[in-house]
């Protein structure tokens, strides 16, 4: 027997559909772990909904909603980071966002290359590829134009490719 899907207001569901992935990626790029980023993203949607965004912006105005969510998310993130910085550090817990599936070892060179990318390239990749999201939503969250996001994605992929190539060569050298 499967649990019944949670029903939310259609407009809120639409927002979540558009921004869930980019927003988690955005928060994970700024100091939150994946698990914390997901929790903070949930908080952000709840705050935005309760804060009356539904009254101030049209449901299809992604730029407006994106700017609204970004502002709330940043404030929640900063408050969270301050709390974390002040308080005792909890022991590492199981990351609920990570499924128990084994990691794909073939992705290791890519993962290593990603770790060496510039932070702004990492961010745009996280936001875009965490879920299959269009550049428009990413742009709305970053306060940039979709063209600028596409350009940054292109540069990020190119940089990632170069780094991955380097790692592949290194691995190939080690295997010989």
């Amino acid at each position, binding site marked *: 027997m499967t649990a019944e899907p949670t029903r939310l207001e259609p407009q809120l569901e639409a927002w979540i559909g558009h921004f869930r992935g980019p927003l988690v990626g955005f928060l994970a790029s700024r100091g939150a772990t994946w698990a914390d980023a*997901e929790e903070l993203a949930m908080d952000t949607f709840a705050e935005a*909904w309760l*804060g009356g965004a539904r009254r*101030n912006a049209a449901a299809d105005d992604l730029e407006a909603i994106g700017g609204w969510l970004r*502002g709330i998310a*940043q404030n929640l993130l900063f408050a969270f980071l301050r709390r974390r910085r002040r308080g005792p550090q909890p022991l590492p817990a199981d990351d609920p966002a990570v499924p128990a599936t084994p990691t794909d070892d*073939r992705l290791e060179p890519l993962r290593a290359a990603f770790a060496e990318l510039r932070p702004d390239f990492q961010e745009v990749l996280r936001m875009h590829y*965490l879920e299959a999201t269009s550049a428009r939503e990413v742009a709305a969250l970053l306060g940039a134009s979709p063209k600028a996001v596409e350009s940054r994605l292109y540069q990020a992929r190119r940089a*990632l*490719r170069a780094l991955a190539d380097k790692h592949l060569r290194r691995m190939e050298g080690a295997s010989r």
Partner: protein
Amino acid sequence: MNTQETPDGGEFRAQEMVGDADLLALFARRTPDPQRFAAGVAARLQERGTDARGIALPRAAGILPLDLGWLGASKLWWLATPALLLAGCVLAALGAARSIQGTLRTANMAASTADLRRGPAAAAQFVLFTTMALVCIGGLWSGSPLVQDAMLLTVGVSTGVLAVGVARCARVGGIDRATVATLAIAVLEALLVLSPQWSGSMPHGDSEWARALPWTLATGIVLLLPFVQPIARLLSALLLGVVLPLTAMLPTTRMPKVPDAFAQTLTIAVDADAAASWQTLAHVAVAAGELGGFVGLHPSVRPEIARAFAASSGGSMIVLSAAHHLGIVDGDQWRTAASQKSFAYQLRQLRTANTPLRPHSFEAFLLPMLRASGDLDPATRDRLAERLVAGWPTAETTFPLQELAEIVWWLDGIGRGDLVDARRVAIHTLLVAHQAKGERPFRGGFAPNPRELPLGSVDSTHQAVALLLRVGVPTELDLVALRRFLVDHGSELTAASPEVQLHRLATATDLARLERMTGPIDRAPLQVLVDERNLVAIAIVVLLCWWAVASARPQPFAVGALP
């Protein structure tokens, strides 16, 4: 993943490895579960209900032009408003708003102007910002010292709040160092533009180090330039290059270095008809001789004196008196001159009259003539002394300080300094009564007639200093205020005419001679802090800006989670 071997040697290729599918696979294990996510949001909504409390900050974050929410729910960010306004004014004036926005966007701290334009709350906020900017700038330029102090305090406090907020935010990686530095430079350059109001030539306040103010700001800006984006660096450097010369050069008054300055000013040509210049030249020459800096006179001076001996017009009396003070006329020359008809008449009047004697400064030449002609016998001496004492200033005297200075000089000149010593207390009382108590730049100097106009004048202060050197400094006299008056009026403007330089030098020599007698006249440390409050406030603002920049991380979110 599309790793594969190439046909020629088993090389791995990455070209196909970073396609969309691979990147989606890379993040697949981090992808939120839609059902669990929706349940989480629903749980939060249920938990908080429709209670709108606690959402003011997120709401504000959605409409503020900059992300100021990190300043906290205490609304302290309102205090930071003036500093932000000043920054905004400069940025707008430069037309650099777009560049700055681009810089912010690069740092992923986007300030979407769309947010600002949207909604009635944002419009009201924009109006409020603009109104406050007008009030702030209007107050700064109103010229009122009280308003200036209040505004500087506001700017200082608000910049402090801003710096603390930025530092808090930056330490957790919320804002990068380049953005903080850009904001800090904008604040400092705004203050630099306005700094002439605080470092002005001398209209208000008691600062003696005001010249350091624009340089303090400039130093702060220059040290922050390496941290900003190239475009912001270029614009900031350009603005600094334009504004600094204007602000730093405006008040470039400087106290002449005594006795070094004698070498430049004593050798200037003096206008034969300018009485004040001859008196001033004599004044400076006496000081130069006393302070060991006499370097000789301009070649035109001696011919003018020779012409004055040949003629005997009223104007030449001033030159002759100056010649006596300069000490460049020998006894024979005075004796010869004394035999001339016009001078002989004046000397006879001086010896025989019984009326109170109140000599003028331009009659000083009569004393060496009297000595050289052999007429200054003890009886004449006593008679002159009686007349001089009889001419001692009273309550009804119009310019008592000026007359007293001449009487004292004559009494000393005829060898009756004992009469001056006997009246030391009375002279002290007169000096204290004549020291101006009003506002700068007239405070601390000596007023010729305090009953009529209680403002210090340079001429009266020359005479008062001569008296102070003769009878000592009364304890009631405000030496610090006198020093400030002499500094203000002795500081010469850049590219001033030689005559102006000479007059400034005369005032500077007064201070040098006074400090030679009393020792350095220093302000109390607390007084220094109060007087230099503008500079202290600016220095604190600069330090706060540096602290905020130093607190920021080079990259705002270098600790992003890995897939």
